[in-house]
């Protein structure tokens, strides 16, 4: 990491800080940005509209029935929870390990985490038959139920993620408040409110740093819990394919993989649309993230082998129906696609130096994300489809999501992307003061410079 840490005299340092601020202040979207935002907004509204239909008519508008009673809402929930885990990976783990290249990507990963966990919470409400009775969870909650654990841990993780996003963002918000000119009044007021009157005093920075350390330590067990408890929603039943002691570790490892994919994709897109960012999100960052992804894919492969091959070796009666459908039956094309393109291909491509260039890394990351979504589908649905069932309409044995169900699910994905997009539009997605610190500029200079922004 030597190349980041140069000995700088104060004048150079201030010059650099000026440069950073110039590059990294949020700015108005161009035509692509606006179209993208509009697209997401329409997608989100379509989802809401379909959801009102569901509220009126009941879950009958979905493809779910008594035998396949959980569908893409639940698999999408698992996907959201998985991808939200990245916040803790990049921010907390890399922070505590003092990894020096983490600063430019922490905020991106935290925003992804907050957006994903928010919509994880929302999509699980969408799956409820009686969302109007949610208060029963408080009035009559049973601590014995994994759902209550999940509700608590999702709420806790959401709170911690928001705080972990917010504390390091304070100087950035204050900077926007002071430096952004010609912005609407509401935007100014929003910055002013959110900045808590931040004035870059060393005491304030001390508190922020303390809070980040506390948060980094606290969020790691909570993050592990959130996905482990989500896996328990399945593992605590008797169904073949879910009844597994491997599930917690399997889910967590998969979550790290898709989360890192999310960050890589975000990094690439930011660089693509903000050319100035390539000074901060360097090729080296892609290289390092790609190596991390190889490691995570290997860990995931390890748990996947545990999950599928050992039951397949025994082929217990019920397991064999399920596994045969995955390996050679109805779900085989999807199953092998996600294993190969979502795990093995990225693992191999990213082993090569040329494979770790930004574009191939981005492509691998997108593959990982798409496959991860379908992997969750394969974890949730087939288990219910292939129980020996009789006396039910043929249509109930196989599940295929309805259009409205897809639109609601798509709406939730659009909503999460909308949060990330709007964040990029209004807040500095790369933290100036953290980068400056990482690049060896002394605290005193940073605080003073950021403060001088206030005066202007």
């Amino acid at each position: 990491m030597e190349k980041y840490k140069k000995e700088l005299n104060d004048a150079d340092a201030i010059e650099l800080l000026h440069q950073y601020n110039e590059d990294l202040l949020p700015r108005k979207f161009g035509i692509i940005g606006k179209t993208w935002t509009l697209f997401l907004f329409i997608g989100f509204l379509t989802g809401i509209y379909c959801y009102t239909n569901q509220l009126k008519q009941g879950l009958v508008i979905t493809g779910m029935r008594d035998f396949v009673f959980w569908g893409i809402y639940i698999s999408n929930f698992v996907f959201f929870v998985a991808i939200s885990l990245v916040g803790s990976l990049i921010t907390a783990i890399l922070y505590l390990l003092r990894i020096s290249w983490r600063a430019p990507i922490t905020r991106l990963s935290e925003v992804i985490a907050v957006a994903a966990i928010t919509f994880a919470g929302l999509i699980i409400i969408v799956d409820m038959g009686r969302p109007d009775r949610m208060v029963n969870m408080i009035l009559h909650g049973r601590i014995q139920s994994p759902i209550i654990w999940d509700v608590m841990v999702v709420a806790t993780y959401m709170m911690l993620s928001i705080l972990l996003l917010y504390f390091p963002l304070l100087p950035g918000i204050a900077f926007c408040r002071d430096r952004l000119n010609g912005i609407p009044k509401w935007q100014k007021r929003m910055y002013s409110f959110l900045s808590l009157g931040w004035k870059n005093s060393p005491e304030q920075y001390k508190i922020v740093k303390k809070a980040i350390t506390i948060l980094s330590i606290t969020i790691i067990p909570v993050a592990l819990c959130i996905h482990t408890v989500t896996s328990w929603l399945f593992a605590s039943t008797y169904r073949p394919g879910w009844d597994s002691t491997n599930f917690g570790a399997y889910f967590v490892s998969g979550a790290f993989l898709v989360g890192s994919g999310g960050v890589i994709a975000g990094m690439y897109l930011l660089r693509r649309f903000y050319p100035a960012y390539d000074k901060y999100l360097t090729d080296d960052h892609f290289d390092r993230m790609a190596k991390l992804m190889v490691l995570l894919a290997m860990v995931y492969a390890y748990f996947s082998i545990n999950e599928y091959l050992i039951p397949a070796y025994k082929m217990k009666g019920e397991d064999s129906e399920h596994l045969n459908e995955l390996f050679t039956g109805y779900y085989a094309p999807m199953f092998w696609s996600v294993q190969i393109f979502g795990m093995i291909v990225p693992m191999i491509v990213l082993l090569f130096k040329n494979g770790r260039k930004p574009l191939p890394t981005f492509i691998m990351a997108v593959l990982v994300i798409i496959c991860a979504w379908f992997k969750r589908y394969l974890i949730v649905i087939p288990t219910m489809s292939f129980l020996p069932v009789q006396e039910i309409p043929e249509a109930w044995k196989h599940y295929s999501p309805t259009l409205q169900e897809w639109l609601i699910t798509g709406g939730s994905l659009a909503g999460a992307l909308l949060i990330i997009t709007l964040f990029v539009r209004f807040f500095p997605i790369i933290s100036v003061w953290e980068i400056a610190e990482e690049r060896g500029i002394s605290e005193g200079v940073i605080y003073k410079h950021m403060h001088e922004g206030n005066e202007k």
Partner: protein
Amino acid sequence: MKEDNSQDNKTTRKDFLRKSLLSGGVLASGVIGINKLIADEKDSGEKVKVLTADGKLVEVDSGNISKCQASTTTPSSEARIGIPGKKYVMVIDLSRCKHALKCQDACQRYHHLSGMNVWLKVFKMQDSENTAPYWLPKPCMHCDKPPCVKVCPVSATYKREDGIVLVDNERCIGCRFCMAACPYSTRSFNWQEPEFLSESKGAVYSPETGFPQKKGTVEKCDFCPDMLREGKLPHCVTACPNGVFYMGDLNEDTVSNGSETVRFSQLMNDKGGYRLNEILGTEPSVYYLPPVSRLFPFKDAEPGKGKMDASE
């Protein structure tokens, strides 16, 4: 009407009338409306106020109100505790079942089940090519260590002291975790607003009848606790022409299928009773007698006979 209520004071009679109108439809026959119409009783001239199903207060001639049994609706709080001193068990004799499906018919009718919701299913069982097929009626197992109750986040499904597992569909949030947890797949979900006969509308809900069903909630076989409270056998037991189902109280060591009453322990001993999936440790309250020395040769079901086949 006059005679029936002559001992009651005015308030209780009104109450009775209101209840009759509100919940009379729950009762077995559910034909009050028709009876009233085709009755040849003359107007008695006495006017009484009754609450109609849609909540309006109307004044009608007392002769217009059909006699019907007062509601036995048990409030939710009481339905959570159960019938004191009892521990209900069911015994299903597989050697007698010939897939007559009278149990299912009765169950559907008395619980007013609509759509695809079937509480009592009868499966053709054939474990492997070389083993013989037989019919297996499958109600809720009312497990003593119920996995469905374990996972319920809001105590909407619960285990009572008398061994019955019920669902309170006024509390259920519709997460369907219980359906995932049940290893016997006995639970159904109301994917849409259930359809009822019109006279059932406005019936007073009790978890003991499970009626009226509600959109977005889970339901299942309930062992007919409203019948048990009256000391009567569940509908599937009485409907079966072959005496397949026995119901009884484990504390009394006695089960009855209506025509025969036998000692439970002796029945288990003599016929080699067992429970389904004992390996899961759920401890069901439903026991099976093996399909040996069968009364009927196995015949495959006629297509369209089952409740669900019919609507395929």
